[in-house]
């Protein structure tokens, strides 16, 4: 049977039989296909579409288990051979790269020109054979963003052009390589966070920022009842905080850490000013020139030098959002259910992990109702295989009917990641 899938996709691109390690959130696949170009991606999708094969796109697979498990998978489309840096135009502060380009490698290229793509890779890992962590395409597909989203926004705010292949093999692009462009619909935004359910992104153009001369972090730990006041002070500061991160864990005082980037002298002085402001709130803060170990790390083991998260272990991981002034209350609720939360108090986005147990379902429900009441939402990004089926990953999604129609237009045969996205799309 495996032979038949390989045969069906024929000469479209390099492909091999899948192994158990290629399963997508527990759903096994027959084949792993690795197109080396947009054209090969198109040939592959055309074949899959014609033959009714289900395709799930994979970069480094760091977030492949996020969302609902797909209904079925025949082909895993591996983007990692499309990893070229197409262009880094220094004078224009833009770069174009293949979807399979690892963010870490892109960062190294860009740094040579004094630039950066301001996206914090929450799942960065070093692998012996090169950079692990997110690929550019994966970062777009999940709309990845970390602490510094408070400064420049999320991935959606940085992508200015995409090249992609529709499920039937049609190659198209949207946007371009200039930062300012309103010609036609902004499909880049539609594809950001679409979890590979609408089209296969093969090339991405992003806007860049200059690397700052210096970064300073102002860290403090606060009594829970002071948290709201401290966050308000920092978030509304005119010292231009580039990130305001908060971390709460059971039995530990909440930490608030603010990033100020700029010139050596400027960043230091701004950090000291902020520290002094916090002192007037009775809060002892310190200026650091390194980030705390948990900064921008999605699943940090806990304490400095703590044991790494065991390979393959999958805690209940949630993304919970709220209006800025609601963040303290949301954190309180997280603490009440013995959860850990790290996230951007400056943007209203928290990543929460919950301890395993029978009550997970109720806790998710409870946090979801609080998030929703506070103007946000809650998504179950991941959970252990035995727990996940009992959880509603996405919750109620406003505008779902329109989303269904968008999916129907782009992918009427449900070739791409069937069942993985909201509402079982």
């Amino acid at each position, binding site marked *: *049977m495996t032979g*038949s899938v390989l045969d*069906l996709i024929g000469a479209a691109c390099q492909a091999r039989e899948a192994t158990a390690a290629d399963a997508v959130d527990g759903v096994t696949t*027959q084949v792993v296909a690795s197109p080396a170009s947009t054209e090969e991606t198109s040939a592959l999708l055309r074949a899959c*579409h*014609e033959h*009714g094969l289900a395709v799930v796109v994979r970069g480094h697979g760091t977030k492949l288990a996020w969302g609902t498990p797909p209904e079925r998978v025949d082909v895993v489309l591996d983007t990692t051979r499309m990893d070229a840096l197409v262009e880094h*135009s220094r*004078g*224009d*502060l833009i770069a174009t790269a293949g979807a399979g380009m690892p963010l870490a490698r892109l960062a190294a290229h860009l740094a040579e020109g*004094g630039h950066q793509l301001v996206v914090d890779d929450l799942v960065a890992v070093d692998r012996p054979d090169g950079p692990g962590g997110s690929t550019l395409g994966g970062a777009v597909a999940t*709309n990845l963003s970390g602490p510094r989203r408070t400064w420049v926004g*999320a991935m959606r705010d940085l992508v200015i052009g995409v090249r992609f292949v529709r499920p*039937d093999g*049609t*190659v*198209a*692009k*949207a946007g371009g*390589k*200039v*930062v*300012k*462009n*309103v*010609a*036609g*619909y*902004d*499909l880049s935004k*539609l594809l950001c966070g679409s979890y590979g359910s609408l089209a296969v992104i093969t090339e991405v153009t992003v806007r860049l920022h*200059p690397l700052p001369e210096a970064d300073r972090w102002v860290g403090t730990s606060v009594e829970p009842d002071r948290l709201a006041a401290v966050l308000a002070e920092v978030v*509304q500061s*005119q010292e231009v905080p580039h990130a305001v991160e908060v971390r709460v864990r059971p039995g530990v005082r909440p930490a608030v850490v603010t990033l100020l980037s700029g010139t050596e002298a*400027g960043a230091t002085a*701004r950090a000291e000013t902020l520290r002094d402001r916090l002192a007037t709130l009775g809060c002892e803060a310190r200026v650091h020139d390194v980030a705390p170990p948990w900064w921008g790390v999605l699943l940090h083991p806990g304490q400095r030098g703590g044991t790494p998260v065991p390979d393959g272990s999958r805690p209940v991981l949630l993304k919970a*959002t709220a*209006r800025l002034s609601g963040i303290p209350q949301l954190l309180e609720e997280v603490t009440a259910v013995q959860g850990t939360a790290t996230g951007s108090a400056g943007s*209203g*986005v928290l990543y929460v992990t919950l301890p395993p147990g029978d009550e997970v379902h109720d806790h998710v429900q409870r946090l979801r109702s609080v998030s929703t009441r*506070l103007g*946000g*939402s809650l998504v179950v990004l991941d959970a252990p295989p035995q727990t996940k089926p009992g959880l509603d990953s*996405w919750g109620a*999604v*406003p*505008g779902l*009917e*329109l*989303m269904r*129609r*968008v999916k*129907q*237009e782009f992918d*009427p*045969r449900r070739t791409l990641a069937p069942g993985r*996205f*909201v*509402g079982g799309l």
Partner: protein
Amino acid sequence: MTSAGSRGSVTEVLADLRGVVPERQLLTDPSELDTYACDGLAAYRVRPALVVLADSADQVAATVTACARRGVPFVARGSGTGLSGGALPHAEGVLLVTSRLRTLHEVRPQDQRAVVDPGVINLQVSKAANPHGYYFAPDPSSQQICSIGGNVAENSGGAHCLKYGFTSNHVLSLDVVTPQGEQVTLGTEAPDAPGYDLVGAFVGSEGTLGVATRATVRLTRLPQEVRTVLAGFASTDQAGAATSAIIAAGIVPAAIEIMDALAIEAAEKAVSCGYPAGAGAVLVVELDGSALEVEHEYARVEQICREAGTFEFRMATDAAERAEIWKGRKSAFAAVGRISPDYIVQDGVVPRTALPEVLRRMGEISAERGVRVANVFHAGDGNLHPLVLFDASEEGATERAEEVSGMILDLCIEHGGSITGEHGVGADKARYMPRMFTDDDLDTMQLVRCAFDPEGLANPGKVYPTPRLCGERPRVVQGAHPLTADGVEVF
């Protein structure tokens, strides 16, 4: 899409709306209709069959529902300042004006959000937020009159979008009436609402995906310090070199604007802005943020400008001086009326590094064709606003100006740019879209259109030169899933 022949009539829509929308808000008198015949691009004029002045989301929904039921096209309109004919009416359709929906529902500095109706004027949002230390960052030059609904539809920018982004970076959630008349909320006031980013798709869709009836927007903290610099140069080349050097120095100013000699002449005539005499170009740079960083950047910018050969360098520190510097720039479009009876405003974008080459080519085209072109541009992001000057009463002048205009757009596309940076495609530039996008690109964009508006009733004829027939599907090979030879249905 409903063919023109099978479209229903506005009379039926009118009958449906009687009793739902007060009579005085339904305009049918030709002379009244004529006041709505064009937007800011007066070269195109169409008298609509009916104007509905809605004053609630329910009235918007009732109007759209009636249009959907009767198969009548509708066009949304805010303040009518658009420069691409986006709000140009449809002769057999309804013009749905949202400018009476003017409630500023909430300003919540603690959440950095404001909730506003679509007819609220852009500047009003900042005015309401200022006392709390906040403002609404997108600042089109028309901000004293344009509406948030129009900003959302056009994804409007402004001089400060270089640093702060466009409307789409500042809209979190929208209430919209879909072209089928449903009222839905897209997004949440917190970022990253689950599902497709339909807010992202709606912003910039130029009224072709429905009508926005409420927006939740981001408010930005007012900067501690603002410094505005005006530097006079002998040529746009010098001013352009200074711009490149500023960017290369790792500085992201809030704004970098350039005006050429002809644009300066016009501004001088119109508002006596007192720009440096004899300048071949002026560069306006605005720096904002923390006082310390601004101080540092200012020193660098001054040094760079002097190295690039500025002969006059001024700085504004207070709001009054700042307004003085901006006066010439912000009045530039209208000012051109002082030196030419007619003009076309273009909005092409080129990569910043291509600016010198593109400006040089534009100069050549202008000389070759004997058509004057004044230049005002957002130099920081390569968004040009060439003003093509002509006198329509002169034989063939209009055609020549249009030809030059088209050549400029081609030039932008040739250099990897865009035909529009902020004014939108509208009715005016739809025919240029195929020069920038392939048929497949345009077809793909219109899949979104089909999802929202399968009948093609929302602002038809805009943005896309050729409408996609919704429901038309490429031929697919039908058959059982290959892995289930017994033909079990697997999808």
